[in-house]
């Protein structure tokens, strides 16, 4: 039996050079493109996404993990990233997988903001399937959550009352970017993320969809059930499941997420 290879690859999207790791079995039965989450969540969830890709490859499913422009090893500055550029990046990564494995059905898989970007991508151009791990349902609420987490971190690290969100928003307008733990997030990207509405995107996809809630009680939230129902109404075969795991995107320590990986690999393998 030939072991799957792990190969760094480079490809281009509208002049930007993107970098990824391709997990390639000898004869892939299908292919998966992984869309990473945003900012610190990307860093914290990295290991789980690597283990997911290895588990998929062990089942003869080719998997590409790559960095969006302005992130990780890909070209560009985080401050210059935009939502449109990121959707172009995903389209380029899809084309790269299609070029390498023309016969393999493609599943897009994303975590948090990456899940919503995956949904936006399949709404633009359909794939066989999409897997949404804890998708961001409202971009505007997500940005608000980021600002609030920033406040809490400021409160905890300085021991003083935090700067309110209105003041931070005014600062973004003045500076053109948000300083998120030293990472500059451009105003255009913040506006793009704020415009995302998962429910509106779900109405434009009719393939197979797995929606996963990662929660301490393994319960699927009414909002995620509603997103699955919107997908079904659009003609998709969608199911929402709850997996009991520690959140994988905001912990420094390693989280194994075995149940999450097994449930996801089994679902993709069954397609």
């Amino acid at each position, binding site marked *: 039996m030939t072991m799957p290879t792990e190969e760094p690859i480079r490809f281009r999207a509208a002049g930007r050079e993107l970098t990824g790791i391709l997990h390639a079995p000898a004869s892939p039965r299908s292919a998966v493109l992984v869309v990473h989450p945003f900012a610190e969540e990307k860093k914290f969830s990295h290991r789980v996404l690597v283990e997911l890709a290895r588990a998929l490859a062990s089942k003869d499913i080719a998997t590409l993990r790559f960095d969006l422009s302005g992130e990780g090893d890909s070209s560009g500055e985080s401050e210059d990233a935009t939502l449109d550029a990121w959707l172009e990046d995903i389209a380029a990564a899809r084309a790269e997988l299609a070029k390498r494995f023309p016969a393999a059905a493609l599943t897009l898989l994303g975590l948090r903001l990456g899940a919503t970007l995956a949904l936006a991508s399949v709404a633009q151009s359909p794939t066989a399937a999409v897997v949404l791990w804890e998708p961001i349902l409202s971009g505007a609420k997500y940005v608000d959550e980021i600002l609030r987490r920033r406040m809490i971190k400021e*409160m905890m690290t300085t021991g003083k009352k*935090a700067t309110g969100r209105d003041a931070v928003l005014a600062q973004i307008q003045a500076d053109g970017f948000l300083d998120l733990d030293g990472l500059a997030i451009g105003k255009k990207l913040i506006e793009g993320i704020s415009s995302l509405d998962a429910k509106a995107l779900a109405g434009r996809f009719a393939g197979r969809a797995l929606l996963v809630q990662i929660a301490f009680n393994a319960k699927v939230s009414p909002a995620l059930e509603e997103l699955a129902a919107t997908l079904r109404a659009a003609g998709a075969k969608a199911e929402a499941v709850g997996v009991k795991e520690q*959140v994988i995107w905001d*912990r420094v320590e390693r989280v194994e997420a075995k149940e999450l990986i097994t449930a996801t690999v089994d679902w993709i393998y069954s397609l």
Partner: protein
Amino acid sequence: MTEKSIEDALREMMVERLFLKLKPEEIDVNAKLAEAYGIDSVQVSELVVGTEAVFGITFEDDDFDPSRFDTVAHIAELVRGKLGK
């Protein structure tokens, strides 16, 4: 909900959501969360979300003062204020 049960509900929620290896009753409501249980800023964020969900309240920006989130007793006091108790 009684004052006692606000604190109990907070302790149960903390153990569950933060995956603490403690029993709820082992959390001293007057102990500093960071020093006694190693609660960091990420966990405080989860604690904030959990408290809002359990009690159906919303914290405003003005609430984010470290002295209000440093012990279970202080969080309970903030919750009581929000609930008008």
